[in-house]
């Protein structure tokens, strides 16, 4: 068997267009354990990336002893990625949180659940009395289950009535959601992973799929190795594995994606390779796009992007010639300047080429986190439950009926507060209580010195619920020990709308509890009631929470009503909407050119792509009365922090193959830790030479906000660009704050999606003394 660390994509199983991706079952068992020794295989899916690989956990004597890919799973056909293979070991590390902790005389000390919860409840009640619901905020994850998000949304938006709730999907996926809403009126991935089987051109925009969703890359590699392989277009300033496999690779300067996209659209329109019939019947806004990109000739955008005009033409010809075009988008667009505007231009590309809803023709606005989709659809991340529109009073009233609460109790005077704004409210003292679940803002947010100073304030009561002590728990007033994946039951949904059941394989350690139990315990202690005086939320375990969530999703685009625990346990994942009409789920949305964009039904009326100002309902109705797809042009704006004399490099940060979300879990799997134990910086050889820096040497990278020390790797990357992986924090160091990439990143976000900009900043680099 291939070594999963050195050969992360395993051996090839080639196949041709329209063929079935061959099954290859990967198994990884602890040393000395044989498949026949395993007592039980418990169904679940991957939670260390967004691909959603279906797998089973091997259990022996009450312990996890390995994993096996599910041959019948529609996502992975049995394959596992390196994080799936080894990540499960984290649960058994000896340093799990097993008891609640409370702050006493400045120190965190062990406490009982009663003691910890009475502090949380006491402070909540005080603040609700004295300062109202707007003084409480909730910041959750992209790694919990649908049942848990739905419960949290019901508690926050319903029982407490605060508008301040978001998920860390804000850092990851907020732009995917925003771009889908702008173009289609609603969140929800139009395409399906099976489109890889059919496409003749696959265009990856800022999507390093080889590292972020390596099993999906395996699928693409298998197509590339088979007959009639697809051509690849790669847009990325680094020469990633995707770029190396690509027919055309464009490496634009960081922060210029919109200019590049406008150049590509200009060419496609000039060559008249557009589907006029599709545009006419299914879209609005095409004339504005034509006007917007009229001047965006390859020559005029070439200098802005640092890409030669001939390359732009070559890429456009590739897109032009496609008869089944699949486009995918991820962090290279989402975490960069003008994030939403750029991602929306990819939707525009698909729409004007009429490439939607048929096999091989689609767009995947990818997710970064494994359960990001659930945060969004359940309403725990700045959306309202069930893709309801906060600006549509009827949607809010419907939610109030569902929860049996007064509609005024559910805040809808403005869009739900996004994380970066919540932090600002904590900074100016108007939020005094912040409950963080399953995420680590003290490493993952931009400008860490500022984040630390906000979270460490005395006047802020910080509750952190997690499975390990992290950089964030160390700033908390109360720490709640949670159960993790494999220790609790629930469901979750991946980037292509596939819902998986995740079973409980083993007991959580010590007094750790499932997140769902913690949220419900809080609700009971707070004595939340509905309008008839019954306890709210009304559910009390995973299955009843799932049933409640199903009721909330009924009739909405993310309809789960055709799913049950039993059905999900038995299959390899089902794509929503799944209801009476579609009992086996739905492979592609919008196959019939019908969208979820009708004014009374849509999730969002949209925003100005550049200013972020929400569009008024009347305006939307006038622009799109029939609920068609919306073509939305955008002009290029210069980045806010371009390189200058003092900081001559463009700094980008990003993910890597072996680690996930601040390494809390992945660094506790020995194989993954050993694969990449330390932070590094990538730069071009030419730049390194000019700075007198050598491969492997120590360098100091600085921006206006801080500094990081890292070993240098000379790589094929655009001159003038530095890359830093952003998973490294301080829990396994001596604590000197010079290792996390986010010491350097600016506090700035895309006004439309509110996603922080991690990939457009100015930096300096010089040789450092060890």
């Amino acid at each position, binding site marked *: 068997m291939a070594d999963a660390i050195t050969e992360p994509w395993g051996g090839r199983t080639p196949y041709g267009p329209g063929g079935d991706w061959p099954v290859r079952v990967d198994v990884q068992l602890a040393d000395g354990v044989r498949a026949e020794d395993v007592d039980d295989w418990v169904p679940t899916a991957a939670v260390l990336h967004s691909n959603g690989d279906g797998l089973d956990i091997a259990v022996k004597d009450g312990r996890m002893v390995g994993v096996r890919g599910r041959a019948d799973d529609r996502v992975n056909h049995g394959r596992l990625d390196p994080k799936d293979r080894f990540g499960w070991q984290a649960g058994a590390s000896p340093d799990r949180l097993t008891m609640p902790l409370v702050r006493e005389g400045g120190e965190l000390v062990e406490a009982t659940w009663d003691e910890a919860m009475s502090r949380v409840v006491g402070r909540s009640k005080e603040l609700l009395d*004295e*300062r*109202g619901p*707007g*003084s409480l905020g909730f910041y959750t994850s992209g790694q919990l289950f649908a049942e848990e998000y739905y419960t949290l949304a019901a508690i926050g938006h319903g029982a407490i009535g605060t*508008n301040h709730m978001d998920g860390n999907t804000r850092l990851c996926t907020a732009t995917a959601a925003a771009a889908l809403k702008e173009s289609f009126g609603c969140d929800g991935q139009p395409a399906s992973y099976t489109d890889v089987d059919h496409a003749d051109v696959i265009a990856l925009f800022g999507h390093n799929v080889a590292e972020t969703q390596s099993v999906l890359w395996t699928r693409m590699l298998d197509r590339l190795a088979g007959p009639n392989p697809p051509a690849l277009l790669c847009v990325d300033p680094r020469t990633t594995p995707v770029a190396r496999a690509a027919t055309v690779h464009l490496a634009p300067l960081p922060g210029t994606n919109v200019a590049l996209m406008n150049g590509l659209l200009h060419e496609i329109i000039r060559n008249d390779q557009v589907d006029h019939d599709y545009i006419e019947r299914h879209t609005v806004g095409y004339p504005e796009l034509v006007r917007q990109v009229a001047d965006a000739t390859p020559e005029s955008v070439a200098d802005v992007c640092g890409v030669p005009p001939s390359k732009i033409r070559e890429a456009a010809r590739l897109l032009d010639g496609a008869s089944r075009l699949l486009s995918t988008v991820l962090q290279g667009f989402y975490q960069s300047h003008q994030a939403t505007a750029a991602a929306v231009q990819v939707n525009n590309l698909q729409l004007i080429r009429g490439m939607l809803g048929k096999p091989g023709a689609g767009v995947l606005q990818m997710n970064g986190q494994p359960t990001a989709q659930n945060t969004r659809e359940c309403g725990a991340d700045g959306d309202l439950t069930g893709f309801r529109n906060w600006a549509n009073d009827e949607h809010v009233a419907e939610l109030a009926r569902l929860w049996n609460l007064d509609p005024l109790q559910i*805040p809808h*005077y*403005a*869009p739900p*507060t996004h994380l*970066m*704004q919540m932090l*600002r*409210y904590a*900074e*100016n*003292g*108007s939020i005094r209580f912040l409950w963080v679940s399953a995420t680590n803002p003290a490493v993952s947010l931009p400008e860490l010195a500022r984040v630390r100073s906000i979270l460490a304030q005395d006047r802020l009561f910080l509750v952190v619920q997690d499975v390990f002590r992290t950089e964030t728990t160390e700033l908390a007033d109360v720490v709640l020990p949670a159960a993790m994946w494999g220790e609790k039951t629930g469901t979750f949904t991946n980037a292509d709308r596939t819902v998986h059941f995740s079973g409980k394989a083993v007991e959580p350690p010590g007094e750790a509890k499932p997140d769902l139990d913690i949220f419900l315990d809080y609700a009971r202690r707070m004595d939340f009631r509905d309008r008839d005086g019954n306890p709210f939320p009304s559910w009390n375990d995973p299955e009843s929470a799932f049933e409640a969530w199903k009721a909330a999703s009924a009739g909405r685009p993310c309809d789960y009503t055709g799913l049950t625990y039993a059905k999900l346990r038995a299959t390899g994942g089902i794509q929503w909407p799944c209801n009476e009409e579609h009992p086996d789920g739905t492979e592609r949305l919008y196959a019939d050119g019908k969208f979820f964009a009708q004014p009374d039904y849509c999730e969002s009326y949209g925003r*100005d792509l*550049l*200013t*972020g*100002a*929400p569009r008024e309902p009347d305006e939307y109705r006038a622009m799109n009365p029939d609920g068609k797809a919306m073509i939305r042009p955008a002009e290029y*704006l*210069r980045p*806010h922090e371009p390189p200058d004399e003092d900081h001559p490099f463009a700094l980008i940060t990003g993910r890597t193959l072996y680690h996930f979300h601040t390494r809390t879990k992945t660094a506790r799997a020995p194989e993954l830790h050993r694969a990449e134990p330390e932070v590094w910086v990538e730069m071009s050889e030419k730049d390194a030479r000019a700075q007198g820096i050598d491969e492997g040497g120590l360098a100091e990278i600085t921006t206006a906000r801080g500094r990081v020390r890292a070993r240098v790797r000379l790589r094929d990357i655009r001159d003038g660009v530095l890359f830093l992986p952003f998973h490294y924090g301080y829990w396994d160091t001596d604590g000197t704050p010079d290792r996390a990439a986010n010491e350097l990143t600016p*506090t*700035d*976000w895309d*006004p439309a999606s509110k996603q922080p900009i991690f990939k457009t900043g100015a930096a300096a680099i010089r040789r450092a003394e060890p």
Partner: protein
Amino acid sequence: MKLPLRELHRAESSLARFLYELSDRHRAEHEVHHVARDLAEWSREHVRDLAEAGNRYGLSLRAGAPASSGPLAPARRKVSELTGRRPEPGLLLLADLRRLHRRTAGVSLDWELLAQGAQAVKDRDLLELAQRDHPQTLRQLKWSNAMLKTLSPQVLATLSA
């Protein structure tokens, strides 16, 4: 057409300047800080366009609009940073956004007048200019409105607490 051109040129220049002022004064409000600067760029372009159009009417209007809030910019930013932990600047922000909204509304009206005038004297170029630039003014106007709507509940609810 000299009068509306001159008037609009003055109003756009002062709007650009005010946007920079707002941006600096609210350095700690990151979205306001950044977007205000982006929007100021639009006004600066409008000023350039108007100066060019003015030439044709024998007006010599300055093509360059302010690119910052002037010599007080560093001080404004410093104050914003120093008071960033206090609630009071919230009220100041609302007041500033209200002022911005009213000023932008004035600019928008002036664009309308210019477009009407251009039609009356059948100046196609001027009409096209208004059709190109005025929509950006309307987007500026919507932005201040949206920021007010989004930020005011928190400011008003916390200050009354």
